[in-house]
Each structure stands twice: as C-alpha cells, then as structure tokens.
C-alpha cells in the first residue's frame, strides 16, 4: 500500500533530515530545512486528498496485526493537522533562516525533530505512541523556546519545562489507568474495550480520561493551566513563537481525538466524560485570555493572550461534540493557527524596526489583526459564525454567545492599537543599527496571510472539508472498524 507509506515518510523524513543537518554547514542545513518542509507540505496535501475519499489511511509499524501494532492512523482531522503543520512550519522555518537559526547550534535539527514530533502526534493511533511523540515535540520545544538563552527565555522556559515534565508524568499515569482497565494501548481498540468496562475499571478509566484532559489542557493552555503561555511565547524568538501556534493545537487535537474516538457517545461508562468539564473550562479560558489581552502592552504578549482566547473559543465549540460545532471548531482552528503564527512573525519583524512600519508592513499587520480578531471578511469570522450557529440553547448557549462576542470585542479593542506599533522610542538601542530584515524574513508572514485569505476565499470547500471531518469524528465507528480490520501478514 504505497499511499499509506506517505504516513511513515511524514515522520521519518524530518527525522532523517534532522540527522543530516547535524553534519552539514549552515547553508546546507537551511536548504535541508526548507526542502524538507516543502516535501512535507506536498506529502500532507497528498494524504489529505487521499483520506478525503472517506476511508482512513493506516500504517501498521512492523507489519504486526491490528491492536498489537503501533499504528499511524490518518483520518480527515489528522490530515488537516498535517497540512497545517507543514504550512506553519514552512513559513516559520523560512522566517528563521533570516538569522535566528544561527544564534546557537542545532537549530535546524531541533526544528525538524519538532516537526517530526508534531506529525507523529497527529498520526498516532496508539496512546503510548502519542506520548512518545509528545515527548519528542516537547523536548525539541524546550530547547527552541529557550533558544538563545536570554534571561526572559530562561525564566519562562523553566516554567514551561517543569510544568510539562509534570504533565508528562500525568500523561503516563493516565495511560496506566486506561491500560489497567482496558488492557490495550491502541486507541480504537481501547474505544471498543471502554464500552464494556465495569466495576472498579469504570471509575479507573474515567480517572484516566480526565487526567488526559488535564494533560492535553496543559498543552492547549486551557483555563487555569494557561498562565505559563504568555511569558514563554513573548520571550521566545518570533519564528519559534509562531511555530508554537501549533503546539497548543496539539492539545486541542488530542482532546478532540480522544473525546470523539474513545469517550464519545457510545463509550458506555465513559460516554461524554469530558462534557461536564470542557465547556466551563473553555469559557474560563476565553475569560483568562481576554483579561490578559486587556493588559497586554506589546504585540507579542497581546498575540499570546489572543492565542489563549482562540484556544478557548475552539475548545468551547468542540466541547459540544456535535458535527456542526466540531466543524466550526476545526475551521476556526486552522484559521487561528495561521493568524497567530503570522502575527508572531510580524511582531518579530516590527521589533527590528526603528521607525513606524512602512505601508506594506503596516498593511500586513492590519490584515493579521483583522484575522486575529476574527473580523470579516477573513476566515476567523466565518469560523465564529459557524461556532455560534452551532451553539445550543440554554445556559451553555448564552455562555458561548456572550463569551465569544465579548472576547471578540476585547480583541478588536486591543488590536485597534496595532497602528501604534514600531515607534523609534527605544532610547537604549539608539546606538545600534538594526539589521534590515531579509527577504525571507519579510515575506514569511505574508505567505501565512495569503493562506488566510485563501482559507477565506475558498471558505466553501474548506468549511465543507471541516464538515466532512466533523462528520467522521462524531461517527467513530468507521474509524474503529478500519483499525480493527487491519491485520498483518505476520
């Protein structure tokens, strides 16, 4: 099955390129990075086209039969995340070749390992394999986040690292609890086993499920677990902060994945175990992010705050676990990831300026701000409309309405200050001549903005894809059947 081989290539290619980069001179490293990302983009698109036919792509490692084999399983959701990863990583990697990548050694390798971790996490069909790829993307992210080792990066990086190390132990606990009650690690197989758990195994599995929610919530920066994010992302090099727009999405992805596949409606004692928690937590997230946005004095921190708001928004939508709400959440996810990444890159570029940004840069800032605020005519608005349309009646619906509209208003008000960026007021820097951003650096955000425009212009096919994805998610049986049918030749 040659198509399914694409899945393994999506993990092995960045790993191999990362190793190659360890032995290469700078120029070759850059070529390796960009080339790999371009290839990955092509691969991701090919995978997406293939899985959009409606069937899963499965790759059983080692040719072992279904529930035993560590498995890469790609449905529409995974495919979409792969494309998103490739796009954002391509743009941010491109941006980084402007010079950040030479501040300390091994940038390209770590970047590629990060991408490998992301791709692996988005494709993992096995809970422990998901953990391993989480660790891979985390260890790379630890280094990239503190890259250059400035004081602020180390301070916030320390928080990020320690919290995530605690998170990793919680992840292991959760895996243990789920394994202890189901006897399997394959997520689809686990979903089947969970339907019939009984006795002490039921609360045990629920306990594991909720611990998973804590772990993924930490990655996604949900609710009370988001406070580490603004400082960390603000301090990080802008290319990295932009890449990290994906990191929170790993958490969101994982919540959606396990929430639909393993703890969906048919999950017996585990049915809808996330539901009572997720919406309140998501609304709290929006509130926390909005408050942070209110007080942000600089663009990177504001972007980080709005990133939190956007995570809250998409999780609030996803929390309803209906086809419509998931579709809205996913479309919004794609958009906000691009928007946040673009804004981080732009903020980084503006940081270099000694004067008010030229018209082109200001225009980019404006478009990015419009995107980030979720204002029309860009995709964020469409996403919010989809989400609000999917809102249920009753208190949950009111909460969602109020939270989204209010947070949007705060976002608009905060972002309206974007025209103030880039004044020559940094007296302390007066002596040094800032470098003129290279072509790569200047236009990496433009590429992301173009993607946003495309996402808006082609909103019809894009939302249709999101809807098909959501449809696949709310009916996990076909996923489970496909996995169970995969037997090996050994």
């Amino acid at each position, binding site marked *: 099955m040659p198509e399914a081989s694409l899945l393994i290539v999506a993990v092995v290619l960045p790993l191999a390129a990362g190793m190659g980069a360890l032995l290469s001179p700078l120029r070759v490293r850059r070529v390796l990075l960009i080339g790999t990302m371009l290839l990955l983009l092509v691969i991701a698109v090919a995978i997406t086209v293939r899985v959009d036919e409606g069937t899963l792509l499965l790759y059983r490692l080692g040719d072992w039969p279904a529930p035993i084999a560590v498995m890469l399983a790609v449905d529409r959701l995974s495919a979409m995340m792969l494309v998103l990863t490739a796009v954002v990583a391509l743009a941010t990697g491109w941006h980084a070749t402007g010079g950040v990548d030479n501040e300390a050694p091994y940038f390209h390798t770590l970047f590629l390992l990060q991408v490998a971790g992301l791709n692996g996490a988005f494709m993992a069909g096995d809970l422990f394999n998901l953990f*391993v790829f989480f660790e891979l993307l985390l260890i790379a992210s630890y280094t990239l986040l503190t890259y250059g080792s400035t004081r602020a990066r*180390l301070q916030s990086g*320390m928080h990020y690292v*320690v919290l995530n190390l605690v998170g990793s*132990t919680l992840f292991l606990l959760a895996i*243990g609890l789920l394994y*202890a009650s189901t006897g399997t690690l394959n997520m689809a197989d686990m979903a089947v086993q969970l339907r019939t758990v009984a006795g002490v195994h039921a609360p045990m599995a629920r306990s594991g499920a909720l611990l998973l929610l804590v772990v993924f919530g930490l990655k996604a920066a949900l609710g009370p677990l988001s406070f580490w994010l603004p*400082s960390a992302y603000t301090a990080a090099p802008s290319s990295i902060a932009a890449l990290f727009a994906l990191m929170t999405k790993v958490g969101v992805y994982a919540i959606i994945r396990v929430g639909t596949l393993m703890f969906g409606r048919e999950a017996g004692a585990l049915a809808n175990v996330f539901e009572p928690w997720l919406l309140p937590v998501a609304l709290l997230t929006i509130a926390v992010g909005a408050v942070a946005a209110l007080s942000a004095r*600089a663009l990177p*921190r504001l972007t980080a705050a709005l990133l939190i708001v956007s995570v809250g928004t998409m999780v609030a939508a996803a929390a309803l676990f209906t086809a419509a709400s998931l579709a809205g959440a996913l479309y919004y996810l794609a958009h906000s990831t691009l928007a946040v990444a673009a804004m981080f890159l732009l903020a980084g570029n503006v940081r270099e300026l000694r004067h008010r940004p030229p018209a082109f840069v200001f225009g980019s800032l404006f478009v990015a701000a419009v995107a980030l605020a979720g204002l029309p005519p860009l995709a964020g608005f469409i996403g919010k409309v989809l989400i609000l349309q999917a809102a249920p009646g009753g208190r949950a619906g009111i909460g969602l309405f109020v939270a989204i509209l209010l947070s949007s208003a705060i976002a608009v008000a905060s972002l309206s200050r974007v025209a103030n960026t880039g004044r020559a007021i940094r007296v302390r820097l007066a002596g040094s001549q800032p470098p003129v951003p290279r072509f790569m650096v200047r236009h990496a955000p433009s590429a992301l903005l173009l993607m946003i425009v495309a996402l808006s212009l082609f909103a019809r096919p894009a939302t249709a894809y999101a809807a098909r994805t959501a449809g696949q998610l709310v009916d996990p049986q076909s996923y489970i059947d496909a996995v169970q049918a995969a037997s090996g030749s050994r």
Partner: protein
Amino acid sequence: MNLLVAIVVAALVGGGVFLVLRTRVFSVILGLMLLGYGVNLFLLATGRLRTLVPPILIEGITAYADPLPQALVLTAIVIGFGMTAFLVALALRERHLTGTDHVDGTHSITRDTEAGAEIEEIEEIEVSEARADA
C-alpha cells in the same frame, strides 16, 4: 504486596509533589525524579503484580508478568533521564544568568523584557522605560 506497592507509589508521588512545589530549582528536579519513580512503579503495576516470572520465555512456563508495562516503563525511564538532563542544564543556565536558584529566576518576574513592538502610545512607554532605567 498490593498494599505495599500502593504505599510506595503514594510515598513517591507525595514526596515528589511536595518537592516539585518548592522554590529551589534543585528541589524541583529531585521532586520530578521522585514523581517519575512513582509513576513508573504505578505503570509497572498496571499489568498487575507478579514475582519470579519475568517475561523471559522458558519452556514449560506459561504464566508471565505482563511484558507491555515493562516496556513502557523502560521507555519512560530513558525519556525521563533525557528530560532530567535537559532540566539540569536549563537550571544551570538560569543560575548562571540570574545568580539565583529560584525557579522563577528571581522573586519578581520581569515581564515583556524583550517584547518590543509596543502598541501603547508613546508617552506611556517613555514613562515606563524611564522607570525601568531608574
């Protein structure tokens, strides 16, 4: 035996959590190590406990300890080592740069020190910069 393992897990996790919540980065490192031990032991226990029958196949024996949790724990131990090493290095660098071993690098965290791209109006920034310089 079950109770014993439960008590040990509890002790490791409790000690780990307490140390993770300390201010000194070195304590936190130790705490994470303890926490890791606790979780590893728990993970091993998820296959239920067996003694004397390690999953090494010997003719005539059919019952073995569950091998899968063991493989998972082994992976977890090795990954844990990598993470600890990185954390130690990070702590060293922070210690070097800040001169303190407080996990926050200082008692009051500096915000937006590298932000740039301010979106406030000029006056406010100048005031705050003057304050920062003073």
